[in-house]
């Protein structure tokens, strides 16, 4: 994964628009967060291989980046995205890595389902 390049990422988001795609969306502060610091409220969400179709995908030029996907009946968005790549399977992988290199959020789009 490379650091987000706005124009390239915007083109990639456009290339998945108006198609049935599978998404992976994940946010986390780690399963151990409240073990190491009892003041941390541990929350996160995970969805993998939900099939959606978006008409408009947009990356906002603000660091870390926010990405929104507008669907016929709703929205998907992610904030905190720092890195991206189009992998060897043509899947768009986006991630937000914190200052220590830990994943804080992931948003991934693919025309074929992700593995299990």
């Amino acid at each position, binding site marked *: *994964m490379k650091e987000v390049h706005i124009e390239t990422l915007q083109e990639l988001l456009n290339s998945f628009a108006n198609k049935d795609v599978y998404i*992976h969306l*994940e946010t*986390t502060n*780690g*399963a*151990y967060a409240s*073990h190491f610091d*009892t003041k941390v409220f541990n929350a996160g969400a*995970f969805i993998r291989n939900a099939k959606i179709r978006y008409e408009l995908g947009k990356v906002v030029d603000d660091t870390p980046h926010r990405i929104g996907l507008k669907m016929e009946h709703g929205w998907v968005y992610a904030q905190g995205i*720092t*890195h991206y*790549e189009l*992998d060897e399977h043509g*899947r768009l*992988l986006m*991630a937000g*890595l*914190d*200052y*220590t*290199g*830990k*994943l*804080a959020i*992931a948003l*991934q789009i693919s025309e074929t389902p*992700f*593995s*299990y």
Partner: protein
Amino acid sequence: MTLPSERHVLIIFPHPDDEAFSVAGIARLYHQMGVPVTYACLTLGEMGRNLGNPPFATRESLPEIRRQELIAACEAMAIPDLRMMGLRDKTIEFEDDEKMVQLVTSLIEELNPSVIYSFYPRYAVHPDHEATARAVKEAVSRIDKTVRPRLLGCAFANNTLAELGEPHVIVNIESVKDYKVKALQAHASQTAWMMAETAKRVDEGQPMSESWLNIEKFYVIQQPDELGEPIQRVQY
């Protein structure tokens, strides 16, 4: 006391690296004694958060990296029989409970272990650890008391010492410490930062404050029909 020999040792943990922290030394000791050891690792730690910055992996490439690390760690620990059970990280507690018990039961029926190492229920912190511990304890509880394998659990919740007291089984692994370090290093995607920090402290002449590389410690997990039976604390 010397570590007793076993018919077969079964280790069950959910994540690659759980075993390196918990049982790497004792696994190596069993190897030296000629005791057969099986490690059933339930997931590939697919949800590991450490991808680096700049990143060395993606969410999608991490599982294969961790699979290779697990294989290398098992070589360091001389665990000959590694089973990767194909579940997904952070989902074990959402699987059907009975399915999880059956998974453990079939391993026990196949291998007929005399001792099982896993996590201690309610003191294992991570939801996958807890779900694993529950399934293992339940599977063992269904075995007739007279032929049941012993069940030893790792516990590291913050309230462990206060509520469970000193560990029941303490194993000195100093003689195989280098293999434990190798196993931990094999899980580089998870431990590189920690291992570098440890090496630095040793280089600077600061002895490790804890003896975590010299001993491994376990609690005897008692079934409901065993409660009240005295537990002897032993050191090997």
